[in-house]
């Protein structure tokens, strides 16, 4: 009997070892688990046939993990000036603490790319706008820096650039006196790539973020939204956010 149980233990170890190795292969760094299947020619305008969205599984967000934030800061060269209250922040981690049990959850908070964005409603110049494919942006050529949109956003998703900037990325122009926020990495999305945060999350084997087309019932995002219960933050405002959360 004792021999048999030892063999069982060895078998179990072997199986679990191979399973881990297989899992490691399946999500090796840099490999995208879900490809965005919407090739758009460069000379064609975006259409409302697509609505880009994101699902964040907060159960997979480890406390203290900051990979999505780091990736965003690197991608858009969001340098800090040692002023945490006003430094630009396109995505941040928020800790939710259940006061009764002491349980702490971490979740990334970014522009929720609402279907009915309050920032667009209040913008006096039309700089704040929603693209046809659902991505909410600031046209900084038109922005006068009044910051109404920052007051209107229930998610505190927007930042104002207070400092003169240098070394901006060619695909991510940023400048003093304008408001900015998460663009869903629109420069990547237009090239059929995933946002930098999503790519970093899956490259580091967390796989907490899924990006895709909410209008396409076959997309990985739509499938997951159908299968699992998810929530919009401040759903009571009826903004129909493009970013949904699981596990909160």
């Amino acid at each position, binding site marked *: 009997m004792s021999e048999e149980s030892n063999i069982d233990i060895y078998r179990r170890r072997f199986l679990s070892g191979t399973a881990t190795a297989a899992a490691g292969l399946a999500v090796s760094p840099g490999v995208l688990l879900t490809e965005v299947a919407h090739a758009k020619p460069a000379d064609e305008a975006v259409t409302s046939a697509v609505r880009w969205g994101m699902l964040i599984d907060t159960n997979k967000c480890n406390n203290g993990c900051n990979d999505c934030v780091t990736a965003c800061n690197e991608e858009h060269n969001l340098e800090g000036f040692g002023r945490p209250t006003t430094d630009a922040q396109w995505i941040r981690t928020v800790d939710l603490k259940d006061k009764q049990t002491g349980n702490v959850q971490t979740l990334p908070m970014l522009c929720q790319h609402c279907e009915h964005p309050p920032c667009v409603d209040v913008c006096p110049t039309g700089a704040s706008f929603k*693209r046809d494919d659902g991505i909410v942006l600031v*046209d900084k050529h038109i922005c006068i820096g009044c910051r109404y949109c920052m007051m209107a956003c229930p998610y505190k998703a927007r930042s104002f650039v207070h400092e*003169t900037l240098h*070394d901006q990325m060619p695909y991510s*122009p940023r400048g003093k006196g304008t408001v900015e926020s998460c663009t869903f990495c629109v420069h990547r999305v237009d090239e059929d790539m995933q946002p930098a945060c999503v790519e970093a999350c899956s490259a580091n084997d967390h796989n907490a973020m899924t990006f895709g087309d909410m209008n396409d019932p076959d997309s990985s995002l739509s499938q997951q939204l159908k299968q699992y219960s998810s929530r919009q933050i401040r759903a009571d405002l009826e903004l129909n956010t493009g970013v949904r959360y699981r596990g909160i």
Partner: protein
Amino acid sequence: MLKYSLITLIFSLLLGVYTPGMAADASSDENTSGPFIPKAQRRYSDTQGCVEPTDEMRTNHMEYILDQRDATVHEGIRTKQYSLTECINCHVSAAPDAPHADSEKHFCNSCHTYAGVTIDCFQCHADRPVKSRFQPLSKNGGHPVNTAGAPVALTAEQPQVLANEGIGNE
């Protein structure tokens, strides 16, 4: 009367001094041919240097850039022909010591200083080619100068795209 004659005298003196000066400036312009304009990195095609004939670009480049700006920001149209990023990729050196937009040696600023026109494009936009982590798929019009890191194998259609842009002719 003395006052008026003095003023007339001063005016005539000023004119007298200034007119030959203007003439001298005009003649020196012909010699140095205006501002120093850095050479572009590559040609658009065999017959054409820039994306439109040079005279047209010198007169109307701002119109092309403005139209492209709205198309890109609002509609996600990312063609390369009139893209400001591609202007910079071709007209400004990628060397680490390449001039910034506030230098008179920068392609844009060389002319704009000469013409006395202040532009604010580069308060936000990159004024030099930047190597970045982001490498777009070139089938949608990627940035050949921006490719950083390991070389990526060309897809079937890429050589044709590059040839169309005159990159392969170098």
